């Protein structure tokens, strides 16, 4: 689904996000309800979003959380095995291999901890990919392996372009 880039940016500005700081990063982990919350006071980081951002930084990605771009929000801890990564805004497709790597490692650790008889955990994430003046949104809730395959296809596509 293609949505106008400007409308998302307007929402971010209205929430007090510093766009100059925003532009310095390759990936920004935003609050899970950043585009649906009625105001700054209602914003919430997804439980695993902050840990996810740290793993990306550890993989040499210039990655930010809401705090780095000017808003300090609480976070919501759901205590289920599903990984909730919130809104992940990918500004630079060069960071995609690292994004795939970090998601793969998160999935691998979940698989390791559960036997084949058990129900599998899911990944919940809203991904936004900047493409020039547009942004492509991928809202995903499902198994991690499929997400990794989708991201690899996007990565392959971006290399061809």
């Amino acid at each position, binding site marked *: 689904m293609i949505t106008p880039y400007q409308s998302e940016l307007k929402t971010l500005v209205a929430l007090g996000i510093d766009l100059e700081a925003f532009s310095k990063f390759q990936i920004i982990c935003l609050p899970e309800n950043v585009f649906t919350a009625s105001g700054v006071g209602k914003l*919430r980081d997804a439980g695993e979003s*902050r840990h996810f951002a*740290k*793993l990306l930084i550890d993989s040499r990605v210039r990655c930010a959380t809401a*705090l780095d771009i000017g808003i300090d929000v609480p*976070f919501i*801890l*759901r205590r289920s095995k*599903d990984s909730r990564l919130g809104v992940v805004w990918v500004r630079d497709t060069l960071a995609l291999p690292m994004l795939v790597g970090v998601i793969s490692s998160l999935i691998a650790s979940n698989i390791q901890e559960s036997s084949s008889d*058990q129900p599998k955990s899911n990944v919940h994430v809203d991904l936004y990919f900047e493409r020039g003046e547009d942004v492509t949104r991928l809202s995903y809730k499902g198994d991690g392996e499929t997400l990794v395959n989708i991201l690899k296809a996007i990565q392959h596509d971006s290399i061809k372009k």
Partner: protein
Amino acid sequence: MKALEVFQAEANSYKIAYDNCDFVSAKKITRQAVGRLRQTLFEPPDGSSTDFLDGTFRLAVFFRALHDFAEVAEISGHVNWAQKDELVESLWSKFCDCRDRIDLVRHAIRGDFIEQVADILTKIQDFYLAAFCQGHYMSPEIVAKRELCSICLTDLRSCSHISGRIYSGKLCSSILDSDGIRLVSGSLVRVPHDPRCRVWPWNIKNNKSEVMLLSFFRIDDFMEKDDWG
């Protein structure tokens, strides 16, 4: 004897005690080993390397897991334990503790013994799956303002430590800042973050339920408390 050989000998003594169903002695051996390792972590020898401290911490977690393992065996030694609600719950909780600790150190501490322990834990899990099915678990939604890093006690977002990793003999974990914590809701899930919050059929009686909403399990509880065992 070198330090590592001492702990190898203690692991062997534990195994002998365990095989003879002498769980009191097995637990005593682990308590002594954890105590000494803890002391080393609190007062490391001069010039101790990061690898040495990390290895010492992992060894302490391993012996702590063996303590859990002896408790699991002790409970399962009761006649008809699987028909006794309290014992079923208690064994499940100890099993979860033991498995989490073994999982943390399994990649670093290798050998037949740890693999045997891991195999028995898998068999226990299979038994629970066959006898009590997959089960349902409580999953509370909590809103919190901040989480602090257990290593540097600063906001976890702004430090370089990563939860679940070991830094110079200390495990990085998230500490919820008590200011501004709010319980929003509780859900029943099939794939829990914490399997200790399992809802057992007997927890729900006369339209009232007594279930664990949140556990405060710490892999490295021995670092904080003297009386962990």
